């Protein structure tokens, strides 16, 4: 009998780069690795930090300027944190609410499943929805 099979190579032992080989020999304790690797991780994320710190500043200045222009009667220096705190409270509330909802959802699902228990699905892949018209 003919059986088709995808052919796969478990390509023989990969040769790690020479530098890597040498590296692990020269750094048996892993200290150098820790220093180098943490440096690289920090460089990557510090770059991101700097960009978005700058972007945020641009955005803040821009937003305040626009607001000042449109509502010159209001002082925007300090009250900026109020909407933020409100936001935090709202978020938390929504978060807790959502968790409750999950419980509720489960109840609804249970009910639905009960109703569907003997619904018309088919072992012949769920195919036939009604009895064929004889």
């Amino acid at each position, binding site marked *: 009998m003919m059986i*088709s099979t*995808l052919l796969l190579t478990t390509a023989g032992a990969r040769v790690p780069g020479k530098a890597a080989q040498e590296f692990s020999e020269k750094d048996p304790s892993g200290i150098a690795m820790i220093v180098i690797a943490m440096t690289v991780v920090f460089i990557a994320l510090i770059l991101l930090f700097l960009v978005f710190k700058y972007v945020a500043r641009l955005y803040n200045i821009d937003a305040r300027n626009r607001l000042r222009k449109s509502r010159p009667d209001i002082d925007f220096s300090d009250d900026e944190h109020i909407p933020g705190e409100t936001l935090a409270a709202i978020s938390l509330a929504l978060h807790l609410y959502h968790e409750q909802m999950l419980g509720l959802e489960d109840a609804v699902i249970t009910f639905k499943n009960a109703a569907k228990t003997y619904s*018309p699905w088919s*072992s*012949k892949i*769920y195919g036939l929805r009604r009895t064929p018209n004889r």
Partner: protein
Amino acid sequence: MVTSGNFWAFLSANLNHFLEYTSFGNFTIGHAVMIIVGLVLIYLAIAKEFEPMLLIPIGFGILLGNIPFWGAQNILVGDPGNMQIGINQSGSLLNYLYYGVSLGIFPPLIFLGLGAMIDFSTLISNPKLILIGAAAQLGIFGAYAAALAFGFQPGEAGAIGIIGGADGPTAIFVASKLAPGLIGAIAISAYTYMALVPVIQPPVMRLLTTNKERLIRMKPPRTVSKLEKILFPIIGMLFTCFIVPAGLPLLGMLFFGNLLKESTVTKRLADTVKGPLIDIVTILIGLTVGASMQATTFLTIATVQIFVLGAVSFLIATFGGVMFVKIMNLFLKEGNKMNPLIGNAGVSAMPDSARVSQAIGLEYDKTNHLLMHAMGPNVAGIIGSAVAAGVLLSFFF
């Protein structure tokens, strides 16, 4: 630039040449017959709602697989005449998609989704019903013996017998391993008889039962606890796979899907496997199984024999299920006896055979609802035929 006179000659020669590439230049009567077969399946699927989820992809697949084209015999990679059109040609779309069938990947994925759809409650509530699902597998091995008598090889006979399991993915999986050339005929035969269950089973059921038996009322099933429902797929998988490890791809995925459903903590995974995943696999398995059915391999005596054997297996399976209930009743005390009209449901062919039980039961007693009781053997039949498939694979793979 060619001269004008030459140009027109060249043009007409090439247009002519192009016609050789069309289906008209490569048409045979076999293509015509197969296209009609495909159209009939699509008609039955839409007009009669016979298994539309399967017969529309299979029917359209037959049309795709029987578009005649030039160079069909060039099937190897890089072969100059291989235009990468036909399902047998390396590099064609249908050829790639068919690997899901020939490597045996699609059927277990369908079982994964199926498991997430099935409710084993009635079975758990009345475990005796499980045994009916074993008895009905007599159809599989009866048809195996008959197929041997017809001259099929043992592996082929096993694959043909599995039609009696009344379960498409199981039939395709076993055929892909034991008789790849017969996948198309076996799949079509299996789906045909599953659609014909309301025609085939009632006479057998009436013949084998007495009026008194048909009036037996069964105890309503008890409520099943969540813990039992969670234990069922775990224990079910361990016990069946320990007995028949070769059934693992089907049984493992069936029970895994069921655990995803019954655990309730993985509802979204269960929803995906019984939703988008099973849909995508259903489409691809149907389309490619259809496209694999070519005149040369499908329009043969073997196909006719497979259809005859399919009918045989369904009859034996129904016989097995009903008779087994009657035999069990000999050992059960009054009040616990089972109505043999649910025996036919052990074939699975879900949920039609359970509906047949209900319909015939109501004919004799308008208040005796057998549907719920028949759902038990119905789902047991799926497990039973996956176990039977494992037995066949153990012997012949």
